[in-house]
């Protein structure tokens, strides 16, 4: 499989930036995310930014209608947008959170074919999790991906839950503020499968008490997943045929749309 050089990849992203600028040059009056056309979104007509339709029957037909319009307009305006090859060669594996406020396809200014994606509760990577391992293994071994990003985000409900659980046994608990996402902190209401899923994170955060802020916990969550990946170094190098794999720990702030780097680790022989 041909590998793009770093220069080609950088040029590719420059082209993407130009595409972004063109895409956003619209006069849409809707509150939808600016994209390359003036079309109603699935939440057309709602004043707030979140879909608030209570007619269950409208949601699915609405998504399909918007998708068909989008596909038609995109094909017309940008004929090369849809990949014509039956193969993909993404440059990046994104391991992120399931949170609906994280639009990785927009955040990365990706075109179809650029970013391979795995999303779960609180962007976890466990070495015993077949689901994530299958994604990472396929991305690196079959698709030739050499950059993996673990992407956490502020106000993550999963991190907030684990933050609370990590304080078990301490006499005084620290509660997140409303600004930090206090509405997510109903730990007693958290369903059992979610509690089980987040137990490793809660256990990990315990070591940082008696002093740990939610912001620190959010970053430590990302670093933990990067470290878990690094711990699989030999397996990863087998998958990559001993080619280096870069693992990036990133943090996304959905109140600004900005990604920041926390760490980058080079997995190499």
């Amino acid at each position, binding site marked *: 499989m041909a590998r793009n050089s770093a220069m080609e990849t950088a040029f590719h992203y420059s082209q993407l930036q130009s595409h972004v600028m063109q895409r956003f040059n619209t006069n849409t009056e809707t509150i939808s995310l600016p994209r390359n056309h003036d079309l109603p979104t699935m939440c057309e007509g709602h004043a707030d*930014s979140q879909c608030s339709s209570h007619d269950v029957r409208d949601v699915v037909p609405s998504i399909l209608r918007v998708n068909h319009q989008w596909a038609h307009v995109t094909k017309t305006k940008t004929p090369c947008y849809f990949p014509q090859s039956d193969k993909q060669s993404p440059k990046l594996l994104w391991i992120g959170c399931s949170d609906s406020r994280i639009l990785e396809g927009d955040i990365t200014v990706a075109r179809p074919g650029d970013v391979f994606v795995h999303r779960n509760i609180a962007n976890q990577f466990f070495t015993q999790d077949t689901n994530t391992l299958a994604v990472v293994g*396929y991305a690196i071994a079959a698709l030739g991906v050499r950059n993996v990003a673990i992407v956490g985000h502020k106000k993550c409900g999963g991190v907030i839950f684990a933050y609370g659980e990590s304080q078990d046994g301490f006499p005084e608990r620290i509660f997140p503020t409303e600004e930090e996402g206090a509405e997510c902190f109903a730990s007693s209401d958290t369903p059992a499968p979610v509690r089980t899923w987040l137990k490793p994170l809660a256990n990990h955060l315990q070591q940082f008490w008696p002093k740990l802020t939610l912001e620190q916990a959010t970053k430590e969550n990302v670093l933990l997943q990067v470290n878990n990946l690094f711990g699989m170094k030999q397996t990863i190098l087998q998958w990559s045929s001993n080619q280096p794999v870069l693992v990036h720990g990133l943090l996304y702030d959905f109140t600004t749309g900005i990604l920041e780097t926390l760490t980058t680790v080079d997995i190499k022989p």
Partner: protein
Amino acid sequence: MSLSSSPPMSTLLASLLSANAKWAERVNDTHPNFFGQCAKGQSPKVLWIGCADSRIPESVVTDAKPGDIFVHRNIANQFHLDDDSALSVLTYAINVVGVEHVLIVGHTHCGGAAACLEAAQAQASNSPPPVSPDTPLGRWLSPLINLVLTLGLEALPAESHLDTIVEANVKRQVENVCATDVIKGAWAAALGDESKEKRQVWVHGWVYDVASGRLKDLGVSRGPQAQGE
């Protein structure tokens, strides 16, 4: 905790962060309140269970805004009943954020489905499996390989095999999701509520065509009215 010294930022990551910054600036210029509204919390009505495939950016193909779609993506859009990851996503989606529609979204030219087709063909011809069953990918695809073996593909034209697998896979995952306690519980709550104000949860099966960008409803949707137990 910090990891050992980091190498210089990769060119790809530098380009990514630059593109991201331009995008955020552009969105902020055209819609100054856009990101700020995300701070209010999320209440998506839709959970998208799709493939990790890079050709299906779900937010773009549905023209979604932040807050619209809760997402789980894995190899070949699977929902295994013993998978803690998918189960925790489904449970969080239904019971914490209040999702009403679960979409299982397969797609054309699915590499995972193609791998299962090859594996089934290898099994039929007593050849070595293309993906070792002892690897995470092999274990992950094992249920789908078993499904492929039941489809009677030998009676169908070869060019239709992959699409047949993709659709059968979506239908199977819809069944799996509907078999979970969380969905059964949501349906039971809706059926037991004579006022009909209780949230109704539906599970749908779709296929995305990577060449045209179009989503297709397979017409296998299930909701509380279909629950016969």
